């Protein structure tokens, strides 16, 4: 009953995926919903916005001693709260355009 109403597509998912693809290789800081913040180099991202980081360093080391020995990590996309990125890596005008396009023509999720 509810599913009939909620059949809507999520075009912004593709935009975020496209955006993160351009950030591969940049140092980013990922803040999770459990308040853990991890800095590392972005290795890869997928369509679910799962993130792989290399050479990680926990932002507040003392609270998470169990992370001392961890070098790389895989973060499930659904637990991410924020991703802090370097400003020069973003082309804001282009991002605005991409967002406008997504609004007008949702990525063809209907195809799937």
């Amino acid at each position, binding site marked *: 009953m509810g*599913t009939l109403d909620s059949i809507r597509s999520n075009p912004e998912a593709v935009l975020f995926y496209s955006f993160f693809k351009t950030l591969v290789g940049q140092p980013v800081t990922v803040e999770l919903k459990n308040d853990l913040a991890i800095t590392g180099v972005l*290795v890869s991202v997928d369509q679910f916005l799962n993130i792989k980081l290399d050479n990680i360093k926990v932002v507040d080391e003392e609270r998470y001693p169990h992370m001392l020995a961890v070098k790389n990590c895989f973060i499930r996309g659904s637990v991410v709260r924020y991703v802090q990125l370097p400003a020069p890596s973003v082309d804001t005008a282009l991002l605005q355009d991409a967002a406008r396009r997504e609004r007008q023509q949702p990525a063809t999720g209907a195809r799937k």
Partner: protein
Amino acid sequence: MSDFFGFNTVMPGRQGGRIALNLEEQQELDRQVQKYALETGEDFEIYDYGETYDNLADDLEETRDDLNDETFGGAGGADEGTDFDFAKNTHQVAPALKKEEELYIKQSDHSGVRRSSFASLWENDGNNQQESFMKGLPEPSHAASSIWGSFGNTTAKGMDLGGNGGFAVHDPVFGQGTFALSRPAGFGGNQPSLEEIEAQLSRTAGAQPHLQMQQERKMMSLEEVEAALMNINGGRPIYSEAMIAEQQAKQDRLEQRRAERQAKQADIAKHNGLMTQSDKDFINRIQISQLVTDDPYADDFYCQVYTALRNRHLQQMGIPGNIMDAEGNQGDSRRRGGNGRTEQRMQQQVQRIVSDAKRNPKRTNVTVEGALGKIAVNSVLNPRQLLQVSKRGSYTESSGSNSPKPPSPGPVSTKSHTVLGWIENVYTYVLALEQKRRQQPPPPRMGEEEIAGEAIRRWNEEYGVLARKMWNELRITVPIGIVHPHPFISILNYSKGKKVIPRVLRHLLPEQTLTLLTMLVANFESLNVCKSEVYADVQGNQEIELFMNTIVPPLLGFVSEAPFRIVVGLLALFIERNNMIWVARSKPGLAFLTLFLSRAEILKQGQGNYPIPEDREVNQWNELYHRLFNQLQTHFSALFMPKATMAEDVHVWRFLAAMAVGATVDQQHVLVTEVREQVLENVIAAQTTRMSPEKAAQRIGNVNLFLHALGLDASQVSVPSM
């Protein structure tokens, strides 16, 4: 059977199915049970079954077995007893076994190379041979003596013991140890047997070959050390003990690290080959099918355009090397080389998947026969909704407003959201036009003009339609005077609107650009960047900068190509419609004035692409100039900002220079008189070295802009004595 491997199997006192103990033994037994019960606290009374035997066995029928042999055939009673004679059978096959063993050894000698590589997986340059022996791995090459032992001895023994010969094999590796192990002689017995085993191992298996290997290794590494020494010291080996020890340590460390790496590789390689190539392709296809797009610009817009722009920047800046290589900043050459092939394969796979997807589109909801509803299939682009909000009314409204509505003919409001809506519509059209540009059909080749021409015509039509819509959306053709500020000016008052103008201009026809410029000039003073108070705050400055960066440059390009009469017309409009004193106070205003003036001068001198203008036009121009001059007279010095920084002044000096070029001698005189203070101030400031040389040079340069136009120079200025 009464003989169980040599043990007497007769149970104590078993006669007729009942355990009979005489009285003494019974009492002794009871006493012991009680003592034990006291010690452990267990109640043994419950275990006294007493006369619980039910004599059921007496009722067994054990007669009428006469025909058993006939039923079951001759049972194996032909040989001695019913045991299988292992030893005798082995003895019969012994020669064949010996031959096989020799063959095997010969084979293993031939395949020594192969075996050493296999062995190296486990044994690591011979360092761990010692360990492998401790683990009990017998080296095949050392099983020279028969692993089957000597059959003569065992057969004899076996026959004596009646069938247990197979048990007492005299193994050269384990020796007597095996025999000792298998006898369950209680706890005490095991320890000596373990020691026995170890003694046997070290005696027979390890000692000699191990020593040999160690010696060999030491000798080899000594040679290596010498060679290394020779290399490092340029051919002359240094035999100091410290150096040798150092080298030895280094070699050891290197070998250790190599050993670790090989061990890790071996660990990983243990599980190689579990999946076939078709399995891997299958999984790859599933993954790629989720990512695949047939129009990367549509689905992957940001990434594609971003990388394209970056590559163009890199190319412009002249970064040496291939642009493709510059992309992967983590890639080493290995990965790049391998990636090339994998990329090709992936592209092929992607093409295959795209064609498959086109043929059978998957649906977002599935209906099963006989089910009472549809099932929504969730994917990344169609996720499960956390909240289910039913929108019945607003749905139909919002669905229709995706495409921008044409401008309504009624009264045009200038509320902010309306103007912002116009701007967004303009963006929509600009994006659509840029997309169209990318899809521009190629120019027709010879002979294909018919077909290609059709496509080109269609493309041109569509492009034109979009361009016209965009033009309408800009509200440039709205007549002046109905609304203040003019809608186009309202658009330009927003930074979003300013940013879109350069992109719009790329798609406009020249006469449309002229109209745009005319409109802008006509309503110039209503621009928000034209207010002089705007200089004070930061945001205002940002807007001004934005204006100067986005709007002025393309229009500058346009005016630089314009003929004389157009420039005259524009300046006339400018002067007529705007308060010059007000306009000249602003940076954009001065910029435009400078633009017009300089262009006119160039054209007058015939340096443009156009012929020298006629006298009539020149006279028109001169008139205009005088009007402008008269309006601005006595206000020239006020053009300078009171506490301006260096950069701010430049445009003023430029404007003054432009004015000076077209001025008559009297006018020039007036100019100099009014601006004299500023000139002197700058020259003095530059000469008294209070500031850095760059700043001083900049000041002098600014002043010279003006002075050169007059035919003067800053060096000619004589500083009046104070």
